[in-house]
């Protein structure tokens, strides 16, 4: 990204799209300049601003890990103007990209620890980045558990990968849905309840959670009941963003900007901020 003109996107092309759920699509993109693509570096948890020229820009986590750089992946839920337009695009279409932006998961501090991923719906997107990064550096981390839920089985993202992760043997996968269907043979129940039921130990552990605000709220409560301290709980925040580089003023919480000081925060950091979520 050009530091002198921080608002100028670089051109990229969509190389693949797939439907994850009725309203969530995954996009794989590459920079149009191969040298740029080859030189691109980022840390898990950082985000990009995707432009559809003529419509606007929106922030999405770089959903693939830096250990797999054939493309950059973004998972997008269709909610507003930009995402509706983005969902109509297909392989070969051009987009703009400003990346990497924001901070990243403090994975260095997580080395040697047990990791508990707690995700809901499209909140699985940032978790996937860190999960794959950790799986690609498996020996650096202890036990890895994924607790992931959606409204229904159709609302789970990365369905094929969820199967693969469950079959790997070096991580635990616990899926749940709020409402099952005739083929669903797994758990039924909200994510925080599953977390509580599993009784994951906070001993030498870090929890990384992302999902709808209400899920995060109850998840944090459940983690606290299990004995997780604020420094052991990591999450990513959402905020309406525009410039993505801490200038336009929009995404502030207190004197922090979610686009620069975040979007990754520990619960300890969030408690220090004015409670405006």
């Amino acid at each position, binding site marked *: 990204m050009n530091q002198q003109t921080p608002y100028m996107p670089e*051109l990229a092309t969509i190389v693949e799209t797939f439907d994850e759920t009725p309203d969530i699509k995954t996009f794989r993109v590459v920079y149009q300049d191969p040298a740029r693509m080859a030189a691109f570096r980022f840390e898990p948890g950082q985000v990009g601003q995707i432009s559809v020229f003529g419509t606007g820009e929106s922030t999405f986590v770089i959903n693939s890990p830096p250990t797999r750089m054939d493309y950059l992946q973004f998972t997008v839920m269709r909610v507003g103007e930009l995402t509706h337009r983005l969902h109509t695009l297909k392989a070969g279409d051009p987009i703009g990209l400003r990346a990497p932006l924001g901070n990243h998961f403090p994975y260095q501090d997580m080395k040697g620890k047990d990791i508990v991923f707690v995700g809901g719906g499209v909140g699985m997107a940032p978790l996937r980045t860190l999960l794959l990064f950790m799986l690609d550096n498996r020996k650096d981390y202890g036990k890895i558990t994924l607790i992931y839920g959606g409204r229904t089985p159709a609302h789970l993202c990365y369905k094929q990968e969820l199967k693969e992760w469950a079959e790997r043997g070096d991580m635990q996968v616990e899926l749940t849905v709020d409402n099952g269907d005739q083929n669903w043979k797994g758990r039924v129940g909200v994510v925080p309840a599953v977390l509580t039921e599993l009784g994951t130990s906070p001993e030498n552990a870090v929890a990384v959670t992302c999902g709808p605000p209400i899920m995060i709220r109850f998840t944090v409560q459940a983690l606290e009941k299990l004995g997780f301290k604020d420094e052991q709980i990591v999450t990513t925040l*959402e905020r*309406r963003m525009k410039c993505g580089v801490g200038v*336009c003023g*929009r995404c*502030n919480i*207190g004197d922090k900007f979610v686009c620069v000081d975040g979007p990754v925060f520990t619960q300890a950091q969030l408690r220090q901020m004015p409670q405006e979520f």
Partner: protein
Amino acid sequence: MVVRFLPADAVADVTAAWARDYHVLAPVREGSAVVYRTWARDMHPFLGRPPTASAKQALLPQTENLFNYTYRKDKDDLTRTEVFVSEALPPEPTLILGPRPCDARGVRLLDRVFLDRGVTDAQYKARRAATYFVTVACDEPENTCFCHWTGGGPRDENGSDVMLHPVKGGFAVRALTEAGEKIAASIPEAPAEVQKELEEKLANPPAMPAAPDLSTAPESFLKIFGDMDFWMDESARCLSCGVCTYLCPACSCFNITDENSGLKGRRLRTWDTCMSALYTLEGSGHNPRPNRSHRLRNRVGHKFCYHPREVEKQGALEFSCTGCGRCIKSCPVSVDIRRVVLDMIERGAAAAPEVKP
């Protein structure tokens, strides 16, 4: 430093001369407002009152092109499109006549955002380097002025290239920077009596009511952050419009939008206001600041708590407010930010540790 004298009836001619070398913005009276207009012949600059809007428009225009884009369809495969992105044009040297010291001080606060925060905003930087302030010093603060509460004053020189001091028959002119020397060069040296009048003026600044101690503002704010009764009462009158933010020399928040004409378009940045209900509205429909109480709290908090905390490593307490009083003067419902800040300090002093919302 050479003191020069600009007779009142020569202001228009001197401004016309400046207009040969610079794009000049000069204040003129239109109805009840004093508006900056691009200099044109037969204009009568009006320097008797602070302009209605701040001078920030010279550095941060209300609408600015970030870049243009063009889609081109591949004629052999109509389903394929390409996008070409081109940058916008650089600015021309600009002279803004008529700001007051409170306006010029605002520039430093804008620099904090656009130059000091980790990224450099190239367009702001280019305008900043090419804009010159010919400021009018204040003799009589208005009842909405409180520049000295926030570290300024009626003759504060920060941000000015040339300062005009009202004297009998016109203005005593002092160039404060190298660029200012160049601008003032054509104005003749002042006669002895004008120099004397200026000396006396500078030695006797206008009386202003004592400034309250605002040093506890940041911590008071945090203490009563969750006191929604307080913020509801203070914001009960607020219309959620954009008058305060758009007229403020220190407010700089902007929106970024794409505007199309067929297959071509431009990405713009435009002034936006944190007081608008839509400002933090997320795509999901969630809004962290749904009420006027939340938004007024954020605005006051940003100016008197978040900004000072952001810059506190760099020395003295700095608020993101120059005390120009425009937000008070022009607010349709007379919200008075002085009142809000003083109430906040009082409430904070009496409060227990932070009240949870």
